[in-house]
């Protein structure tokens, strides 16, 4: 059944492979064929999943991490470019599990369910928002359509390589099927509108159940065909996507706030057996034990005050430590433009002030989010073999006085505060960041 979607993805895959082979030298977004090793020395190196080295060395080559460890234990090849980061702090590039940078869109008002819609087709690689995100130390981002639909479309996992085409930015999570994103769903008040949208919460759940039952039937017909093209059902882009969800290959990213909506999201995911990340989860602290028991991770948002919408009135800065104590998986997201990518580290820092452990805080913007996107084998920590995505900070990651000084992706420096052209994306200013045109406010 999946032959068609291979064809769908053939072009971008080819592009990626060609770029990888260095056949388009000079293409800004190529997977970097960086042959000269780079050694970052003198810094405190926070690997996140392993040790923190007071005086460490990070050695990278060909876009990957070769070695990380104490200065005494890592030998630097003679041909290496040495980056002296004495007094600095190095940690993995930040991973954001929920953002709206890139000026993409999603489903329209014709229906409440748009599993066929891909935000990938609308991302603008030239968007200033990508540079703003690099200035905040972000390197991998789940860019999603909004939350004004039960299903607003397919999300896209992007590596923020400088690029002219979205294909150069994709992070493939399923090479066989060509999957590079999740599926954005929402419950609660945002999708409630006039028909064909649901008018109540129960109707929302009924529509989602009916949708997945159709998908199960479609899946059964594909299986019954046993590869015989004659017996295959007609292609249906929405059902194909939902089958990927049912097979566990595509993760559902479910916007949900109120505690009962959280439990409804869990109930539906349990019924159909799909993988899901709970997003925003304002009321998570009320059902922390239930979330922990469900095993679904919570991707939470920190905003500076409660209220602003009915579903956010119970916002509690203590949510993160409460989830940690309950044993739930948790991470933070920016929901940019709701919170600014440049200040992403502020979210876990405020959670520390409320009692979150430092280790969990580090994970909450790196490896925990990578797990929520199936990319934890490649990003989210500094380990040999992983992508050489890292940031150099002027000091403690959780201090207001600390600035992201450099952002590296796959062994190449893509943002540097020492370069005035780059620096302005950190500070802002006259005609630095043009409005994204992302005018609607249904995302939180």
């Amino acid at each position, binding site marked *: 059944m999946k032959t068609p979607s291979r064809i769908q993805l053939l072009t971008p895959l080819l592009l990626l492979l060609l770029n990888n082979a260095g056949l388009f030298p000079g293409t800004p977004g190529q997977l970097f064929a960086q042959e000269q090793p780079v050694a970052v020395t003198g810094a405190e190196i926070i690997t996140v999943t392993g040790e923190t080295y007071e005086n460490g060395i990070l050695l990278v080559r060909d876009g990957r991490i070769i070695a990380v460890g104490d200065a005494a234990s890592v030998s630097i090849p003679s041909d290496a470019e040495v980056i002296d980061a004495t007094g600095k702090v190095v940690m993995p590039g930040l991973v954001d599990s929920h953002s709206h940078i890139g000026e993409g869109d999603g489903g329209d008002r014709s229906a409440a369910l748009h599993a066929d819609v891909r935000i990938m087709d609308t991302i603008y690689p030239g968007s200033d928002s990508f540079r703003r995100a690099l200035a905040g130390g972000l390197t991998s981002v789940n860019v999603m359509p909004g939350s004004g639909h039960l299903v607003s479309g397919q999300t896209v996992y992007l590596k923020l390589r400088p690029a002219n085409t979205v294909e150069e930015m994709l992070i493939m999570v399923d090479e066989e099927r060509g999957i590079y994103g999740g599926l954005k769903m929402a419950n609660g008040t945002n999708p409630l509108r006039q028909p064909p949208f649901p008018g109540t919460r129960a109707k929302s759940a009924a529509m989602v159940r009916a949708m997945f039952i159709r998908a199960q039937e479609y899946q059964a017909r594909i299986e019954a065909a046993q590869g015989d093209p004659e017996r295959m059902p007609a292609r249906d882009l929405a059902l194909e996507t939902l089958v990927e969800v049912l097979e566990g290959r595509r993760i559902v990213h479910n916007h949900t706030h109120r505690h009962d909506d959280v439990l409804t999201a869990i109930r539906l995911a349990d019924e159909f057996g799909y993988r899901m990340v709970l997003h925003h989860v304002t009321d998570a602290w009320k059902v922390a034990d239930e979330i922990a028991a469900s095993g679904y991770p919570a991707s939470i948002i920190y*905003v*500076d*005050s*409660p*209220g*602003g*919408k*009915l579903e*956010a*009135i119970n916002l509690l800065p203590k949510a993160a430590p409460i989830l940690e104590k309950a044993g739930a998986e948790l991470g933070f997201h920016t929901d940019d*433009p*709701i919170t*600014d990518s440049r*200040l992403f580290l*502020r979210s876990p*820092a*405020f959670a*520390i*002030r409320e009692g979150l452990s430092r280790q969990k805080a580090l994970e909450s913007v790196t490896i925990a989010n990578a797990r929520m996107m199936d990319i934890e084998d490649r990003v989210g920590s500094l380990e040999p073999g992983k992508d050489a995505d890292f940031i150099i900070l002027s000091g403690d990651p*959780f*201090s*207001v*006085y*600390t*600035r992201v000084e450099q952002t590296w992706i796959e062994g190449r420096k893509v943002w540097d505060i020492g370069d005035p052209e780059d620096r302005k994306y*950190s*500070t*802002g*200013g*006259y*005609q*630095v*960041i*043009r*409005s*994204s045109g992302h*005018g609607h*406010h249904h995302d*939180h």
Partner: protein
Amino acid sequence: MLTFIRPFRSLTHPAALLALIAVLLFLPPAASSQIAVTADTVYTMDGDPVVNGVVLIRDGRIERVGPASDVAIPDGYERHEGVVATPGLFDARSVVGLAGYFNQEHDQDQLERSHALQPDLRAIDAYNAREVLVGFLSRNGITTVHTGHGPGAIVSGQTMIVKTAGGTVDEALLDSTTALAITLGPGVRGQFDTPGTRSKGIAMLRQELIRAADYTEKRRHEDADRRPDRDLRLEALSDMLEGRLFALVTAHKTHDIMTALRLQREFGFPMLLDGASEVYLLLDEIREAGVTVILHPSMVRLRGETENAAFDTAQKLHEAGIPFVFQSGYESYVPKTRVVLFEAAVAVGYGLDRSAALHALTAGPAALFGMDERLGSLRPGKDADLVLFNGDPFEYTTRPTHVFIDGVLRHKMD
């Protein structure tokens, strides 16, 4: 621009005196009248910070401030301890109490959409002292707020100054009528049938100010019979023209800021420039005009007329010697209010001198609004509004632990 300080003035009235006595008799028992606060560093905002400092509070006022070596804590004083002490923080422009946290039609009183020019709308008639966001600011160390009508109309209404304590506006009130909220630029467009353009809005405002100037003349007439009938709209504008109220002018783009300066020169009213996201392009003009800037929140979203805002504008204003204060502003969505402490912290992170930032949160706004006799620094005789922090006030990972207003411990957090 203090026309009067309500609690003081009301004391002259015998009924108010009786009421005050009644209140004093029923003070909550938890409110100890004698308190000693100690901190590793006390930022008095009245001279150098005091290391190992003690602040004695008695009957709602600061009694004494000094190093522990000089100031003995008398017996019977309730003791509280922190790492850093500062005066209570002063939010120089907010809409809390009018723009409620539910963000539903019934709790959004910051903008009346029936007409673009309504200087007669009083903030005291709409302020909900028990609004959740007022308490939220209070817990974050903000003890005084300049709040009221929001941006979005040529003149949306009046503003006032309150403390973030008290169950009614009368208990909270410091100044009932502080400024008229005026908006220039695209923020007005789309809210009303007219104005639909920038220049139409200015024409409407100038015409109304000229009528108010005329009204002012007639109001002064020696023969009472020849004075005009009272007109509440013109009265408020007349008060502004006579310097009893500020013009709080919201303008972000350079041309809107220049329009504000032009209007100010033409009509001579006392002006505060609100928002001003492109002010870094006009430092000479602003300094020359002698205008104080109530700077947009550092973390204002970069879109529409604020798309060119920068994290280092406060630092640039400081460097240029232009007086500025911080504000939480108006938010239409989440977060429903900002917190000036957090906004100042980002400015500090982007290079603003820390003591300049503290000044802009305390003594600066107190002086700006003519309240430095009572507020803005820890000096004997002033209101005992004070915040204790468990570390650097600006650091993300530390927080206010104790908030005192009028010598009463209002909030305590671990």
